[in-house]
Each structure stands twice: as structure tokens, then as C-alpha cells.
């Protein structure tokens, strides 16, 4: 969820003559280290890209002639459906809560963020349970009307359409957040000028507010679509064949890393198209505020039927994207709790939770440390190479977890095998697998995937420590170490916590990379939920899924605090997300 920063959180320009410049050997060493780390993080992406040039094998030809077309068609349908869904939900709700006044607006304003806490696979499990033939909805309809099987038509939730719908329900907050921020930023003066030039409220929305917010909306839609492309759990559960499920199947079912990498490369091409599309649609349209006067928006006061309609429009996404799936999971957990006699299941749940927490905490700590290393590398020596390497390192956010998993596993396996055969040849001993299938590999994948999250947060907070402050602290008698300890640390430490927290929750939710890279018989909450759901034990899957949703609520709370503070015309919020 925190990827939002990527497009918004460009570090502010430091275009004044006090830019720190490179000096001394030790700082060059630091920068070299930063560049090395950045390149290391870029390895998986480069490996996958490199497979485009590997000659196609037997498995690949088989894939190409059978399933590849359906992967592409399904992916395009998903992108199309989710794109429209998140646009409509996101923009309309953002407009209502920023421009109108109606009862309950304040609650709905942050409530609309809640679906962010629900991972796509969790909503998929709950909707599958709700809308299946045996689910409460169809059962209720049959009981009510006295129908039986075949008497009626009901849309199949396990379909491309179903997947697009559930994905849109949990991904629209990306658009909502960015569109809302864009609407809020628009000075009322611009809108008022529109009104005086003869535009009604609706026309001034379509001809002024919407075009002004277009860059933000495009970014929001692009982020939602990237999540769509990288989704594995929901499409797998709904039986929709896409690239992510294809990679998983090719890897485990057909055991062909090369073909899996080639699938990953095509998926990466989709991501790339999205990235470029987002850039282009934003284009040079970086709208600056021409009016520096800011006034609180004069919200249109809605009454009676209109107010009820607005409430319904804003409450619906919350209901469908959070309350319904969350409630279903809760009900299931309640049922299993009362049914299960022994505590064997509960005991295992604790074990999985411990695994998840351990992985998430470890990855969060590493991601923050690496982000600090890179951010300071660029700060001390803003060399173009260091900057470029840092940017590449931050690209992982756009790359689906399954792609990264493949990109991590291929080089690690090569490394292990090379080492093993060398040891065997030289000393007659076998090292076995040192890296692949270990926690180390998993951590590496997490850092690659979520480094952008921590990097943006750290960058933004470090930008608050202006180089002028460094200069002042030094002349006030602080050495470099004391300057960092007494000026940098207090200013950036809250943001470091935020960064760690965001990575933590992202790792908790992560499914495909964990599934592919985890050590043998090592389960996390997400993997356990996936396994149980794959065995159609949806009720049992509810407990781990619900635990993940609960963890996901933490960053949502943080986010709502941050956006309520960071409003133009008010004191700047200090939380950077």
C-alpha cells in the first residue's frame, strides 16, 4: 500500500548552493558500497530481463501453443476491469468527500481507506465462500424462492469477472487517496474562477477539477493495476490462469526455471508498459499551483435524498471491500473456534504467526538499513551513477513477487551448484544448497520487492534535514558523528519507524514470493491461508487471513493520520508516508 510514495515522494529539489559535495576517500567508499548494494538489489530484475534472450525450450513451446494466449487475454481483461472499477470507485468517492458536505462524511473519509488492509487473496476467499453454490447468498436465494439447481442463473464468482470485481474492491483506495489529495490541493480560487466563467458545479468538476487531478488519478490507477498484475492468491483461488499462476505452475509443476523466467519476463513487459503509460499520462503535466492563496473548500451542502445517495455511494465500497469480507472471515473464525476441540490448530496458528512476525521484522530492519545506506550514499556524494543505481534498486516495487522469486532463485541456485561442484571437485565434499531455499533467500527477495517503500520514506525524511542544518550544526561545535546523533537521528527516527512498519506489513501480506522461496515445510500466515484455501478449507483459512487483515489496519491508521495532517493551509504534517 505504501508504494504510493514512489510516484509522489520525489525528494524535493535541493537546488541551492549549499549542496554537500564529495570529499574524502571514506565517502567515496561509502558511495561505492551504496552502488554495490543497489546493483545487488537489481540482480533479480536483470536476471529475469536477461531470460528474454535465452533460447526457448520444450516447455516454453508447449506453453506458447497452449496457455500463453489465455494468460494474455485473462491479464488484459483483469487490467481492463480493475482499471475501470478503481477509477469509478476512487474518483467518485474522493470527489464526494472533498467537495460535498453530508452527514457521516468525516467517518466515511477515512473509512474509505479500510479496504487497503485486506489482501486480495483474503477478499477472494471470503467472496468465494459467500457467493459459491453452497454459500449463504445462493442458499438464501434458493430457500426464499424455492429454486433448486439449474432453476436460476447466478454469476460465477470464480471467473475473470469475479477476480476483477474483488480486486477493484480492495485496490480502489489507491485512486481514492491520490485523487482526494489532488482535489484538496486544488485551490478553491481556480474552481471559483471556473464558476464565474459560467461553469456549473458539474461542469467545473469535469472541465477543471478532473483534468487538474489527472496526473494523480493516473498514478493511482497505475498503482492499482501493478497490484493487479502481481496478484497471485486471488486469481489462483478463482482458477483464473494468469502469468503469476503460470509462473508458479511452470516452476513447481513443470520444473522449468527457464520457461518460468520467460513468463516472468513477459509479465515484466506488462509492468513496464504500465510504468511508461503512467509516465506518459502524467507527461509534463506537473500542475503547479498558480494561485498561492488557499482557502478551505466551500463544500456543497447536500440534503435529503442527495445526502442519502452520497452516503450510500461512499459506504458501498467500504461495505464490499472491508466489512463484508472482514465480517465473513470473522464469522468463520468464530465457527471454527467453537467447533475445534483440541488446541492443535490454534497452536500451529501461533507458530505460523511467529514465523510471519520474524520474517516481517527481519525484512523491515534490513530494508530500513539498506535504505539508509543508499540515501546517505546519495546525500554524501550525489553522483549520477549512485543516483541511477538507487533508482534501479527502487524499481522492485513494480515487479510482481513471483517474478522476483524467480529472479532470486535462478542466480542463487546457480551459485549453490557452482560452489557445490567446485567443492566436490576440489575437496570431495558437498556443500548442498547453501542459499536457495533458506530464510536468507527469502529476506533478499523481500528487500528487493519492498526496498522502494523504505527508501522513499527515508529519502523524504532525510530531505527535512537540509544541508544548511548540517553546516549550522558543524559550526556550532558538533563533529560529523555528533551532527548525525543530535540533528539527523531525532528528525528522521519517526520516519524510520514508519518505514519499518510499512515494510513489515507488506511482508506479512506477501504470498507468491514466500510460497516459491520458503524453506521446506516453513509456513507463514499467508502461506498457511493459501494452502488451506487451496484445499477448500476456507473456514480454517479464515484465522490466518484475518490476522493479516488486522496487521494491515496499522498502516491504514497511520495513513489516515498523515493525510488528515498534511493538508494545505495547515501546519505541515510531520509524518511522511
Amino acid at each position, binding site marked *: 500500500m505504501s508504494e504510493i510514495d514512489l510516484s509522489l515522494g520525489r525528494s524535493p529539489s535541493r537546488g541551492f*548552493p*549549499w549542496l554537500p*559535495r564529495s*570529499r574524502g576517500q571514506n565517502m567515496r567508499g561509502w558511495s561505492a558500497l551504496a552502488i554495490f548494494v543497489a546493483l545487488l538489489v537489481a540482480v533479480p530484475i536483470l536476471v529475469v530481463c536477461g531470460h528474454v534472450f535465452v533460447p526457448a525450450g520444450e516447455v516454453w513451446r508447449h506453453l506458447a501453443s497452449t496457455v500463453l494466449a489465455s494468460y494474455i487475454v485473462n491479464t488484459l481483461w483483469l487490467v481492463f476491469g480493475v482499471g475501470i472499477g478503481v477509477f469509478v470507485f476512487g474518483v467518485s468517492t474522493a470527489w464526494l468527500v472533498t467537495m460535498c458536505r453530508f452527514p457521516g462524511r468525516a467517518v466515511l473519509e477515512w473509512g474509505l481507506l479500510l479496504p487497503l488492509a485486506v489482501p486480495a487473496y483474503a477478499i477472494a476467499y471470503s467472496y468465494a465462500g459467500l457467493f459459491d453454490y453452497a454459500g449463504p447468498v445462493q442458499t438464501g436465494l434458493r430457500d426464499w424462492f424455492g429454486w433448486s439447481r439449474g432453476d436460476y442463473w447466478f454469476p460465477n464468482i470464480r471467473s475473470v469477472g469475479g477476480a476483477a470485481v474483488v480486486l477493484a474492491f480492495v485496490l480502489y483506495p489507491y485512486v481514492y487517496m491520490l485523487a482526494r489529495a489532488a482535489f484538496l490541493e486544488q485551490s478553491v480560487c481556480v474552481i471559483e474562477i471556473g464558476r464565474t466563467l459560467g461553469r456549473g458545479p458539474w461542469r467545473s468538476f469535469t472541465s477543471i477539477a478532473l483534468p487538474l487531478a489527472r496526473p494523480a488519478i493516473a498514478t493511482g490507477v497505475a498503482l492499482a493495476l501493478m497490484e493487479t498484475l502481481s496478484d497471485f492468491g486471488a486469481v489462483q483461488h478463482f482458477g483464473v490462469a494468469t502469468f503469476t499462476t503460470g509462473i508458479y505452475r511452470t516452476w513447481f509443476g513443470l520444473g522449468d526455471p527457464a520457461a518460468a523466467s520467460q513468463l516472468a519476463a513477459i509479465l515484466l513487459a506488462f509492468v513496464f508498459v504500465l510504468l511508461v503509460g503512467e509516465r506518459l499520462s502524467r507527461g509534463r503535466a506537473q500542475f503547479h499551483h498558480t494561485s498561492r492563496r488557499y482557502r478551505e473548500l466551500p463544500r456543497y451542502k447536500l440534503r435529503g435524498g442527495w445526502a442519502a445517495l452520497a452516503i450510500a455511494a461512499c459506504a458501498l465500497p467500504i461495505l464490499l471491500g472491508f466489512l463484508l469480507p472482514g465480517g465473513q472471515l470473522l464469522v468463520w473464525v468464530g465457527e471454527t473456534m467453537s467447533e475445534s476441540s483440541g488446541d492443535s490448530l490454534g497452536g500451529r496458528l501461533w507458530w505460523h504467526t511467529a514465523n510471519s512476525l520474524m520474517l516481517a521484522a527481519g525484512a523491515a530492519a534490513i530494508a530500513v538499513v539498506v535504505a539508509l545506506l543508499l540515501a546517505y550514499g546519495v546525500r554524501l556524494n550525489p553522483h549520477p551513477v549512485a543516483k541511477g543505481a538507487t533508482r534501479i534498486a527502487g524499481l522492485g516495487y513494480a515487479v510482481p513477487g513471483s517474478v522476483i522469486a524467480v529472479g532470486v532463485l535462478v542466480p542463487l541456485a546457480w551459485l549453490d551448484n557452482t560452489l557445490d561442484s567446485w567443492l566436490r571437485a576440489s575437496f570431495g565434499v558437498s556443500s548442498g544448497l547453501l542459499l536457495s531455499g533458506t530464510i536468507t533467500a527469502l529476506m533478499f527477495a523481500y528487500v528487493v520487492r519492498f526496498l522502494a517503500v523504505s527508501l522513499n520514506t527515508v529519502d523524504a525524511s532525510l530531505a*527535512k534535514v*537540509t544541508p*544548511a*542544518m*548540517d*553546516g*549550522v*550544526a*558543524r*559550526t*556550532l*561545535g*558538533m*563533529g560529523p558523528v*555528533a551532527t548525525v546523533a*543530535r*540533528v539527523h537521528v*531525532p*528528525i528522521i527516527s519517526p520516519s524510520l519507524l514508519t518505514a519499518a512498519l510499512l515494510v513489515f506489513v507488506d511482508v506479512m501480506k506477501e504470498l507468491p514470493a514466500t510460497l516459491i522461496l520458503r524453506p521446506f515445510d516453513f509456513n507463514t500466515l499467508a502461506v498457511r491461508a493459501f494452502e488451506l484455501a487451496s484445499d477448500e478449507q476456507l473456514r480454517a483459512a479464515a484465522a490466518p487471513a484475518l490476522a493479516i487483515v488486522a496487521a494491515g489496519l496499522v498502516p491504514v491508521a497511520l495513513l489516515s493520520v498523515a493525510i488528515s495532517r498534511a493538508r494545505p493551509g495547515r*501546519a*505541515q504534517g*510531520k509524518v511522511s508516508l
Partner: protein
Amino acid sequence: MTEGDNVTAGDNKAPGLLMAGVGHRYGRDPVLRGLDLEIARGEIVCLLGPSGCGKSTSLRVAAGLEPIQEGRVEIDGKEVARPGFSVPPEHRRVGLMFQDYALFPHLRVVDNVAFGVRGGDKAAKRRAAMDLLARLGVDGYAQDFPHVLSGGEQQRVALARALAPHPVVMLLDEPFSGLDRRLRNQVRNDTLDVLRELSVATLLVTHDAEEAMMMADRIALMRAGMIVQSGSAVELYERPESAFAASFFGDVNIIDGTAEGGGVITPLGTLAAPFQDGCRVRVFVRPEGLGLTPEPNGDAADATAEIIASHMLGPVSLVRLKMDGVDVPVTARSENGGRWKAGQRVRIRLDPARSFVFPASQEI
């Protein structure tokens, strides 16, 4: 306390800050080319120049934030920098103040100032900080965080903080440009009073000639990494040594001509031009160097002109004139505001003391 921590002036005659032959380049671009500068304790020197001339780099080198590449820096008679040797900024006894003040956002005002106080326990540091804040009239905000203060208040806090460690040298980088005009004058005077009183050697960087004239005991005019002229405001204004100094340091009318027999003939009259015959020259005339008399009064030998427009600016008027036979209009500054009207015909008398002739080859 070490020996040098005593701040009272006059225990030695060494200049507060001495920069000699300082050269610096970023990559291949030379930014400073043999900069020489000397500032006595209690003296205020303005480094004046267009943006990109190396002003800020000079401050960075003096503060020790930028390693020196050529030349040397002395503070209070002690060498603090030469190539390959540099006393770190925290041991140089310099104070720094920036345009954006760079107050620490995580510290209250009093702690911002106490940050720089040396020696003593926490309470003593706070007391010292409070004294400084009181002296600058912002002790009422001691417990506030910086972001709630206005620009002028932030400036005072930043000054108090920079003064806290009793610096020998104070370096100010465009410290007043963030303030609005009225506030600026007041803050400026208060700042200078404090700096003089504490006999700090002050180096102030600005691109605003008027500000430099208001503040400085001495102005060092800088261009392309070198000091081209240094002196009092009067010296620089009345006796510029180059076309750049003449034009940067005040408004001028520019008239092109050719030197002939030690003089140059202009539509306004003849001026001394000690250059080779045939040398292209440029004449710079201050607006107040053009005396106006309504026709038909005045000397018949003077140039005649018609007033295009007249703007009363309080005690003086700015008068735009179209001289007979000359296309480019000239501007005169005349006392007796309000007497001039558009369309009126006047005679112009040129004051040679307010006119300067330089070869046209000199860049402005």
C-alpha cells in the same frame, strides 16, 4: 575553556578573518580564483556580486564546509586551512546563518540556541540561551517550536543560535532576503548592532547592492571568483574602477562613443577619456548626474530634451527623457519632486563627477 574562547576584542591585532589567494574549483569549473579578503574584529564586510560569482563558496571555505584547494584561511590570527590541512568547522569558531535559517525543527527555540552553547550543564546552557534570546527580543517564544514563528522571529532565533558559541567570525548568507521590506530594515539594524557590540568579524553575502550599502563598513565587489573592487559604499558608488562596478552598483545611463584626443564627445557634452584615439568607449552616467533646467533657462550649450514621463518617489523624481537627436531615452534623478511634467522641454547639464568612462571592451 581554551585560550581562544575569550571573546573580548583587542587582545590581539590579528584580523578576525583572513582569506589569502583562495582558489576553488568544482570539477573543472573554477569558482574562486585567488580571493583575498581581510575582516577586522567588529567590522562588517559585504561580499557583493551576481549569483554564481562564488560568494557562497567563499563562505563555505571560510566555515570549513568545503576543503580549500589553493591559498589559506586564518581566523583570529591562527591558520585554519591550507591545501591538505583543514580545521573542522566545529573547531573554527565561526557562526553561520542562512537565508532559510535552518532552525532545527525537532528542538524548541531555547534548545535550538542552547545547542550551540559550549560548556556548562544543561541548565547553564539554557540560561545562556535565554540571555541571548532576551537580548534579541524573542525570549517570549523560548518554549515554542520554530515552525510557529514568523520569518523575522526565526531570523532572530537563528542569529541567537549562531552567536551562542561566541564566534570570532560570523558568516551570513543572504540572511535577510526572506523578509519583507519593512521588517528587513529593522531586523538588519538590530542584527548589525549586536554583531558590532560583540566585535564579531562579519562576512555577509548578498546580491543586493542597496543592502550592501546599508549594512557594510566595507564592500567587496565580486565577480567570476575574484574581488574586483573593495572599499566603502561611497568609494564604490562614486569611484567605480570598472564598467562592471559602475553598472552593478547603481543605476546608470549608458552612452557609447569613441575616444578622441583624450576625450569622448557625447550628446550630453565632452568627458575626459584617457584612452588611445579611436578606442571604443562606454560612458556610464548616474541618473543624479543629469541636472535638469526648464527651457529656455540654463546654459545654451547644454543638450536639450523632452520629458517622456516623470515619477515622483518621495523626495526625488525619476524623469525619463528623450534627447533631441538621440533615440535611446535616458533617466535622470532630480530633487524637487513633482516639478516635472511629461511634454516639458528641458536642458540637461552633465555632472562629470557622476559620469565614468571605460573601454567598451570591458564586460558589464
